[in-house]
């Protein structure tokens, strides 16, 4: 591995100062499950690696009346072991439980998954479904943007040199809501999504009053299926709705052919998963077991 310096600041201020000083040549480190491999193989280089895990703001994990605050360095296991997150944000727990294996989940963070900006990131479609916002910090202040605007292409996102993702926030879903994330992989576990779908819905009297669908691995970056989501609103919570939503989702994607699957296959699977994920999200909303 090429040489680099290392710093582990214990305040957000110190971290953004370090990044500002080393513009473009400093790499933030959270769980390291992508970064350390990329540095070792030379896919990325760094003069300075800045460990963010000692910064209190990046370790925040709390559910309040406002919703979820998720510090960017919080590892996956803390999310699925949290007593309340599964109740309100089930899709996020679904995703965090299937990223890598147990060892990866001990270290990998949702914030890091977002910042690596892989098109097939599992947690991003779940965040899109749940309506998450990204809080970005830099030496000159902070800005917030919807998660679906964060990734801009494969390994690309809106972060400018000197900026770090501080936290992700998700509003508390209203009553009678449910969410789910599911992916297709050829193995049972430890694999990268061929297609990943997250959905959240609110169901009132058998009718869907709110819906958001996030799609992964079928475009250069995870997608918010906005038109499909809007179409679902006011439809009955029925198989016909889920199937039609799947059909519509197939038309907005631009998947690639690769060794994991052809574009044709991905298109087919997208429809199937949208249908199944919606069905499960509605079931969760109606049973009230998991928002």
């Amino acid at each position, binding site marked *: 591995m090429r040489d680099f310096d290392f710093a582990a600041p214990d305040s957000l201020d110190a971290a953004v100062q370090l990044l500002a000083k080393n513009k473009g040549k400093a790499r933030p480190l959270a769980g390291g499950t992508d970064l350390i491999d990329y540095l070792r193989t030379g896919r990325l280089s760094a003069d300075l690696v800045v*460990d963010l895990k000692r910064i209190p703001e990046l370790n925040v994990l709390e559910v309040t009346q406002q919703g979820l605050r998720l510090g960017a360095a919080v590892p996956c296991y803390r999310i699925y072991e949290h007593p309340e997150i599964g109740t309100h944000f089930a899709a996020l727990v679904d995703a965090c439980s299937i990223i890598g294996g147990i060892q990866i989940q001990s270290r990998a963070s949702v914030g890091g998954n977002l910042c690596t900006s892989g098109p097939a990131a599992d947690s991003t479609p779940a965040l899109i479904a749940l309506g998450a916002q990204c809080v970005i910090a830099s030496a000159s202040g902070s800005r917030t943007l919807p998660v679906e605007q964060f990734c801009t292409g494969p390994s690309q996102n809106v972060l400018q040199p000197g900026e770090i993702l501080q936290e992700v926030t998700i509003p508390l879903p209203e009553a009678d809501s449910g969410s789910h994330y599911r992916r297709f992989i050829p193995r049972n576990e430890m694999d990268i999504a061929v297609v990943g779908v997250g959905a959240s819905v609110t169901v009132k009297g058998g009718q869907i009053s709110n819906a958001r669908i996030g799609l992964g691995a079928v475009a250069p970056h995870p997608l918010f299926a906005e038109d499909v989501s809007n179409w679902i609103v006011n439809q009955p919570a029925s198989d016909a709705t889920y199937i039609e939503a799947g059909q519509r989702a197939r038309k907005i994607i631009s998947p690639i052919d690769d060794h994991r699957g052809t574009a044709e296959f991905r298109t087919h699977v997208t429809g199937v998963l949208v249908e199944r994920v919606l069905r499960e999200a509605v079931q969760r909303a109606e049973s009230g077991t998991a928002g």
Partner: protein
Amino acid sequence: MTAQQVVTAEINGRPRSFLCEPRQTLLEVLRDQLDMTGTKEGCSNGNCGACTVLLNGRPVVSCLVLAVECNGAQIETIEGITPKDGLLPLQNAFLENAALQCGICTPGFLMATKALLRDSPNPSEEEIRFKLAGNLCRCTGYDKIVKAVQDAAERQAATK
């Protein structure tokens, strides 16, 4: 070359200080600097689990941890799990169920299983297979490992 850093961590219950470069992984430092070669290197990219150790009680792949991250941490490796008076129930279960052949994967499986049985003393077969999916074995075909873990769970329950 960048300056080496001093790292102090508790390894297998004992405080240890070592010098390392920021680019060295915990796996490299354990094996090459501290001569603790029980932790194995398989892929060096996080896929095989041969390098699994417990970091602050959590199973991690030490090839994807920088040693400099471990300042102040508690680390448990395969060298630290054997009691003075024999083997752990878990180790006996692996031996008696023939859950190893070449043995390269075994330290990683033992560390991952130790954490698994601590958090879930009576796991189902499905849970064992899911939670050990981050550990690969090229020899046994996994069935014997799963049986050994189930056996270890029973042995642990019996000793309580």
